[in-house]
């Protein structure tokens, strides 16, 4: 459910362990060590079962699509938190702000003057011929130049100071409800534990999100802006999150059919008659937003919505066309964006990426499949990928055939030794690979709630953290103290 695959992969599963390093417990994890040591036997087993019940009872589910009908599942929640100290977070936060500023500057530019193409810093074709580049957005700049009102930047860690961006999720990143529910669950399950340590709070995220959305209301909207969350409906895999966020923000959760356009203004049908809407936090993809502009067969959207948007009568968050910024074929150029727009060196590094559409990269990829992770440039959910070191020769051969048929659809990255964190599994506590998705809010200002969603690959040695592929989540603690 959590958008696109996050997979870095390691040939050798022994990555950097965030708790045990160089024969000692790292400082941020001392509180975890002390806590675990003091627990009675079976305590974790009991709490683990309690946690599962709790999530099922609250109804935190996502939907897995399969032939046997759609199933509602809960994502496994691991009860051992992941910990970052204040310094580590401060560095990450600076890096995230920088990256997201650059991404938004890129979007403003690419839909207006395209200076970065003129300057030759990014080739034209990967942008202009990319289906994610939306000509409909040309010469239109959203309020405050904010496109990625919510960005989920996937971070992997390879060492004490080594953080890499695996991918930028700029269109409709999901998962923040799990971040919030995980903390809530920790507070309920272990009231003492959180009470004894200075962990940065995150429960104000919905308020920050609402502030962000209000800050980008059309400048001439009458009175207090009305914000609503547009969902594709209850059959969407992230519907739980949509309803959760709407509820937490105290705004209406609307579907396309609840809205209509009159005189280029968006209205919602209410029991008291039509009411104007100024900002739509939409969790519907561009393609489905408006059958008059995008896919004609869409029934999830609102006919005429895009006209109201271009007229400046409604703000859509995230903006239309942001997906060009998180397209995997554009990812390799993000560090260049930081340099070009901000005149700074990027703080967060990219994972080296091979673009199979380029002949020299392609031949390298073909001859090194056993060392690489190959993914679809526009796939989602971790289905269309090859984890070279873990694949059989036959699987690699099959994948190579697909690759040869459409090389431009794929990118490849070296296998990375993702960091591990202590995780509660059947055999007890064991290290498992993790990544991190912090959520960056972009409105009039940029705001980041400390931490993010930690996803964990529960199977031993596995590097795939996607919930659809057996991944779980953890609470992520940012300590307010330095270690």
């Amino acid at each position, binding site marked *: 459910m959590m958008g696109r695959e996050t997979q870095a992969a390691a040939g050798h599963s022994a990555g950097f362990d965030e708790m045990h390093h160089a024969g000692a417990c790292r400082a941020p994890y001392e509180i975890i060590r002390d806590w675990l040591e003091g627990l009675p036997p079976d305590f974790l087993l009991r709490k683990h079962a309690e946690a599962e019940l709790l999530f099922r009872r609250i109804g935190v589910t996502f939907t897995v699509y399969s032939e046997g009908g759609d199933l509602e599942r809960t994502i496994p929640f691991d009860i051992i938190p992941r910990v970052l100290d204040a310094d580590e977070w401060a560095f990450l936060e600076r890096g995230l702000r920088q990256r997201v500023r650059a991404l938004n500057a890129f979007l403003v530019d690419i839909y207006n003057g*395209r200076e970065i193409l003129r300057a030759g810093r990014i080739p*034209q*074709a990967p942008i*202009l*011929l990319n*289906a994610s580049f*939306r*000509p*409909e*957005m*040309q*010469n*239109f700049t959203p309020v405050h130049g904010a496109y990625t009102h919510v960005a989920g930047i996937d971070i992997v860690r390879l060492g004490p100071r080594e953080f890499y961006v695996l991918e930028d999720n700029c269109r409709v990143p999901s998962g923040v409800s799990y971040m919030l529910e995980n903390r809530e669950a920790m507070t309920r399950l272990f009231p003492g534990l959180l009470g004894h340590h200075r962990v940065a709070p995150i429960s104000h995220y919905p308020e920050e999100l609402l502030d962000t959305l209000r800050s980008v209301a059309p400048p001439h909207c009458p009175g207090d802006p009305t914000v609503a969350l547009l969902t594709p409906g209850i059959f969407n895999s992230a519907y739980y999150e949509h309803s959760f966020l709407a509820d937490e923000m105290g705004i209406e959760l609307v579907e396309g059919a609840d809205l*209509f*356009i*009159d*005189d*280029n203004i968006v209205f919602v049908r209410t029991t008291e008659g039509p009411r104007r809407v100024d900002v739509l936090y939409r969790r519907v993809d561009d393609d489905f937003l408006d*059958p*008059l*502009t995008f896919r*004609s067969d869409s029934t999830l959207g609102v*006919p*005429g919505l895009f*006209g*109201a948007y*271009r*007229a400046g009568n409604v703000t859509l968050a995230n903006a239309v066309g942001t997906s060009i910024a998180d397209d995997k074929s554009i990812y390799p150029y993000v560090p260049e964006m930081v340099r070009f727009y901000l005149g700074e060196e990027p703080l967060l590094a990219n994972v080296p990426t091979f673009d199979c559409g380029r002949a020299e990269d392609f031949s390298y990829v073909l001859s090194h499949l056993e060392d690489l992770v190959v993914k679809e440039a526009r796939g989602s959910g971790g289905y269309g990928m090859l984890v070279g070191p873990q694949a059989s020769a036959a699987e690699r051969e099959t994948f190579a055939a697909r690759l040869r048929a459409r090389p431009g659809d794929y990118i490849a990255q070296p296998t990375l030794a993702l960091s591990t964190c202590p995780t509660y599994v059947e055999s007890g506590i064991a290290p498992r690979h993790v990544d991190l998705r912090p959520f960056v809010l972009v409105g009039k200002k940029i705001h980041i709630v400390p931490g993010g969603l930690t996803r964990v690959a529960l199977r031993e040695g596995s590097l795939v953290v996607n919930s659809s592929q057996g991944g779980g989540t953890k609470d992520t603690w940012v300590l307010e103290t330095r270690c």
Partner: protein
Amino acid sequence: MRLRVHHETNYSYDSPVVATYQMLRLTPRAHDGQRVISWRVQTTHGHDLPSFIDGFGNIVHCHALNRRHKEAKILAIGEVETFAGDGIVRGAAEPMPPLFFLRNTALTMPDRAVETFAREVAGQLPPLAALHALMGTIRARIAYRTGVTDAATTAAEVLEKGCGVCQDHSHLFIAAARVLGIPARYVGGYFWPAADAEPYNAAHAWAEAFIDDLGWVSFDSTNGVCPTESHIRASVGLDYLGAAPVRGVRLGGASETLSVTVMVASIDQ
């Protein structure tokens, strides 16, 4: 030449429609080959329609009718002065770079047959000559016939059928040009067939292709000419869907009866 256009679209329904929403690309803008003297777009039910300029530089009117109706009308009326030229479009709003127009859509996606067709017609010819050859061949091979294709017919289907209308000629031309690596786009507009010719009761469509040293050059494969002062250019896009004079949806209502009247008259004295 001064041309007067009266373009009327009437919809009627067997049972009432709850609501109608439309985007109208019916408004010519000035370039070196045409000057808009007057133009208005209106619907029977509404006041002035709100509008915006889209990513291709088209003027788009937004029409929303949120009450039950059994009939709806769209009227575009105006006068445009056109100038004879060499078929090259100069001085038009050009927000998108030419390279963009190499992008294909569902309507222009070539199949093997279209690719072969394009390469065989072009041979070793330089771009401009190749495009003229394409236009000539399409005119010769794709007979003008109404009622055999519709708004969803693709370029590949047109080649296979061997007949169609101006929209189909244009899609095939665009698809073939893109096969040759030449940026091409769809143009919607109006056509005056000459005083003594049969009136042409339809909105017209043709194509433009980009040649490095010349810029955008127009090709009307239906008439086998590079557009002249008989053509009024109203919208551009990657294909018909992007440049369509009317793109709409309606809620409710059973079968629809559509009638379109286009009158283009020369008012030069």
